[in-house]
């Protein structure tokens, strides 16, 4: 092609061929520039204005962020995210790893069992939330079932208990996502070099020791990926809260995503809602940047 350019004889069809790739990519480039970065900037801008029910562009500096910091509900939502996120990630990881290791012991019907563990991941969080709201119903759900089965003193009313309602979200979210963690680790386990394990066995190491000392440490990349994905799910959690508790009782089970939605779209506080959205972005970046950094560094060393 370069020779043709040098000769200055480029036919229109060849010119078109040369431009086609750019032309094809152009709509997506526009989408990314406007729909991703342009909109983020726009929201960022709104967070410095006094927008209420309608967008306004009257600059108020950091006032919306200051109001957010003084808002009790925002602190409840942030604290809930810490509790919910921490428990959800930790429990999902433990259950996922344990199930993956157990499934890796040449289990009959492994395919079927795997399918069962993973199916909640195909469901909408709204469906999951609806189901668990019913299961955790005080009076008619598990509460009643276990009493019917003879556990007389059993009480399960966490869904209406402001101090415990967050745990209900954790239970449902773990039910939905732990199978996925299992699948990630299982595929990681299948990639572990067998000769290392054989050598360790020959040396007389027991199976649990081999897993704890050799196999699982070698799955560190899988661990970080899972951590990253789970943290991301936790920060974005909105549907589950909407379906299970709608943030209640009161705002005891609010999460930042729910806070952002209700202040921006129901309470006419666009400015503060935008500020909360930017803080959510900050939270995502604070886990994404170190992750990508370590990934890239790892690749360079490899």
């Amino acid at each position, binding site marked *: 092609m370069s020779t043709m350019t040098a000769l200055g004889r480029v036919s229109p069809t060849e010119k078109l061929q040369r431009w*086609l790739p750019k032309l094809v990519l152009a709509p997506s480039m526009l989408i990314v520039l406007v729909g991703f970065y342009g909109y983020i900037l726009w929201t960022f801008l709104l967070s410095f204005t006094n927008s209420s029910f309608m967008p306004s562009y009257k600059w108020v500096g950091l006032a919306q962020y200051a109001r957010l910091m003084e808002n009790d509900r925002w602190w409840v939502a942030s604290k809930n995210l810490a509790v919910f996120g921490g428990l959800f990630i930790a429990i999902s990881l433990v259950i996922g790893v344990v199930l993956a290791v157990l499934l890796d012991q040449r289990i009959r019907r492994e395919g079927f069992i795997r*399918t069962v563990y*993973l199916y909640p991941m195909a469901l909408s969080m709204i469906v999951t939330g609806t189901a668990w709201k019913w299961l955790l119903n005080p009076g008619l759900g598990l509460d009643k079932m276990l009493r019917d089965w003879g556990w007389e003193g059993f009480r399960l009313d966490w869904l209406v208990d402001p101090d415990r309602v967050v745990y209900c979200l954790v239970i449902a979210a773990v039910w939905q996502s732990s199978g996925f963690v299992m699948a990630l680790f299982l595929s990681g386990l299948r990639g572990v070099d067998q000769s290392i394990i054989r050598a360790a066995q020959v040396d007389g190491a027991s199976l649990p020791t081999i897993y704890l000392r050799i196999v699982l440490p070698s799955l560190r990349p899988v661990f970080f990926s899972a951590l990253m*994905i789970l943290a991301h799910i936790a920060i974005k959690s909105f549907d589950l809260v909407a379906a299970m508790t709608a943030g209640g009782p009161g705002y005891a089970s609010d999460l930042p995503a729910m806070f952002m939605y209700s202040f921006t779209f129901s309470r006419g506080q666009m400015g503060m809602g935008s500020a909360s959205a930017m803080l*959510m972005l900050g939270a995502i970046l604070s886990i994404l940047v170190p992750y990508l950094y370590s990934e890239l560094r790892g690749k360079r060393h490899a």
Partner: protein
Amino acid sequence: MHNQLAKPTLNFSRIAIYATLLLACAVYLIPLIVMLLTSFKSPEDIRTGNLLSWPQVITGIGWIKAWDTVGGFFWNSVKITLPAVFISTLLGALNGYVLTMWRFRGSQLFFGLLLFGCFLPFQTVLLPASFTLGKLGLASTTTGLVIVHIVYGLAFTTLFFRNYFMSVPDALVRAARLDGAGFFTIFTRILLPMSVPIIMVCLIWQFTQIWNDFLFGVVFASGDAQPITVALNNLVNTSTGVKEYNVDMAAAMIAGLPTLLVYVLAGKYFLRGLTAGAVKG
């Protein structure tokens, strides 16, 4: 890692492993069983029995009532999901093709910028997107939702195809170019026919994501245009009247069945999408 040295004899630890695995199966399955049982019970049965008690009378009234309330919104979801899935997959395939076989200055930068979309918290784009849809006259329409899903699905669909095409040897495409094959000929004749697995992964991933979406649905579509997830949430969380749990559960099943069906039929691709899409950047 299959352990081939340890012989699987029926000893205590094997029994413990199987017991744990089966117990876990039960825990994962119980919510689904409870949903199904409850959906076929009468309100009377629900009051007197418990979650896992067998219905005294099996009745479809819950399903009929549920379909009456959310059935129309089920079709909204179909109208939103199908075009959005196909268009975003096609765009993703074309993007992936350009990003691997027709690189140009800046295309890598673009890919980097696009990838961030996989992690973008949508809260940061909701307001501008709703202003834009309003300006275009697409607020509260299924068309508006189709566009939103295409835009914010692009990061994942492009990622799928780009990574898949990375493993296609350049020589194949270069030879075709020398033979005079053009941009689209190479795409449709050479690359697409070898991409069936990734097309499946992408279609299923997008189907699950878009069908299960709630955030975009609740923000951009109210009233007649809302998808099934929003309709289900409204049904379950209305505080007026007597709660009919059989209707709630039947509606939840209706909302969940399409993705569940896809999962059962094409679980292999679903899992590949989850791991490929979610893990590798």
